[in-house]
Structures are given as structure tokens and as C-alpha cells.
């Protein structure tokens, strides 16, 4: 069964303390891995798409990387405004309609 697993479930950082979030997936034919940010009570906001192992994407303090079985979201010198839940998602092998399966997310809290 296609699965997406994120770790840790929750992460508390001090402002400026860099760290990484992990997303592992089990789809056999990866057609992209997608990172979203979700603020409380809001819909997910698209951040990055990664398509092949070794690919990296950056946006401000965030950098996403991809290997054959997992992706990392590196947060460098985070600020309180980076506090949110970060979701990763992949299209399942069985679907080509745009469906995504999501991980449960990592809730990041950055304290000043």
C-alpha cells in the first residue's frame, strides 16, 4: 500500500536553531514529491515539488531535498513566522487523476 510517513510529529526550536523534517514514502514509481505548509485553520499552501533523487529546491529559510525513498525539509535559522505544520504528499501508484496522499505532518513551533 502506498504510504507517506513524516517525522517527527512535532518539533520545537528556538529562533535561529536549524533542523530537518523527514518524509518517507513507499510508492514505487515516484511522480513527484510535494511539500506544503499549513497554518492553523487554513488550507495547505504549496511550497515545493521535487521529481528526482538529488534534486533540491529552496525558498527563503527552507530547502527541500529528495532521495530515492525520502525527502528532507531543512530549516535554516528559523523565525517564529515559520511555525506551522509541514505536509508532504505524493501521487499514489494507482492514480493519474491528480490525487495526492498526504503524510500526517510535522508541526513546527519556533520560539523567539
Amino acid at each position, binding site marked *: 500500500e502506498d504510504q507517506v510517513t513524516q517525522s517527527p510529529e512535532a518539533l520545537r526550536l528556538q529562533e535561529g536553531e536549524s533542523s530537518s523534517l523527514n518524509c518517507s514514502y513507499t510508492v514505487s514509481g515516484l*511522480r*513527484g514529491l*510535494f511539500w*506544503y505548509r499549513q497554518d492553523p*485553520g*487554513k*488550507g*495547505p*499552501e*504549496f511550497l515545493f*515539488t521535487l521529481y528526482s533523487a538529488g534534486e533540491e529546491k529552496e525558498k527563503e529559510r527552507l530547502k527541500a531535498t529528495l532521495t530515492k525513498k525520502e525527502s528532507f525539509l531543512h530549516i535554516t535559522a528559523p523565525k517564529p513566522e515559520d511555525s506551522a505544520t509541514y*505536509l508532504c*504528499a505524493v*501521487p499514489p501508484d494507482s*492514480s*493519474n*487523476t*491528480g*490525487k*495526492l*496522499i*498526504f*503524510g*500526517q*505532518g510535522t508541526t513546527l513551533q519556533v520560539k523567539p
Partner: protein
Amino acid sequence: EPEVTQTPSHQVTQMGQEVILRCVPISNHLYFYWYRQILGQKVEFLVSFYNNEISEKSEIFDDQFSVERPDGSNFTLKIRSTKLEDSAMYFCASTRQRANYGYTFGSGTRLTVV
């Protein structure tokens, strides 16, 4: 920046009642989706819609659910007879290209069934 708009933001309904959740996708987008998120759980796929028909639906999307694009701008999700377990955030999303999964999501409708 273009947005996906969802109304209402919060709806409370009695068990057994019908509800319609409304979405206005981005105007030049062609692929439309509904997802839901039960409190504390994963975002789950419900249905994808293209060219005025359902492309795919999940096991959750049973006969009590339906979707419609009644005109060129609105995209609705109807739940015919709500159950307590339908309580969740419902998100509409759209994208211009099927292969582009960088959806734009709306802010969601929080449905509470009492």
C-alpha cells in the same frame, strides 16, 4: 495572487440534514478536487473532477456525496444526509494542469454535525 474561495467558513448542521459546500476555483484552472481533514488526522482525498465529470473518487465518497460544477465558476460538494463522522474541515483545491500537483487550496469549510 489568485485564490480559491470557499463558503461558508463554518457550518453547523444537524445529523441527517443535507449540506452544500461551495468553492470558487481559480478561473483558468481545469482540475478540481475535494479533500477533507478530520481534526488531528491526515488530509484525505475525496474526489477529483475534470471536464464536468468525476475522474476518481475515494472509498469515503459514497452515495451520500456528490459534486457539481453548476456554472463556469462554482464547484460544490453536497452531502445528502450528514452523519456525525462527517464533521471535518473540507478543502477545495484546483490546478491548471493535471500533472502539476502544486494545487491551490482554499481556506476550507469547517463542518460540524451535531
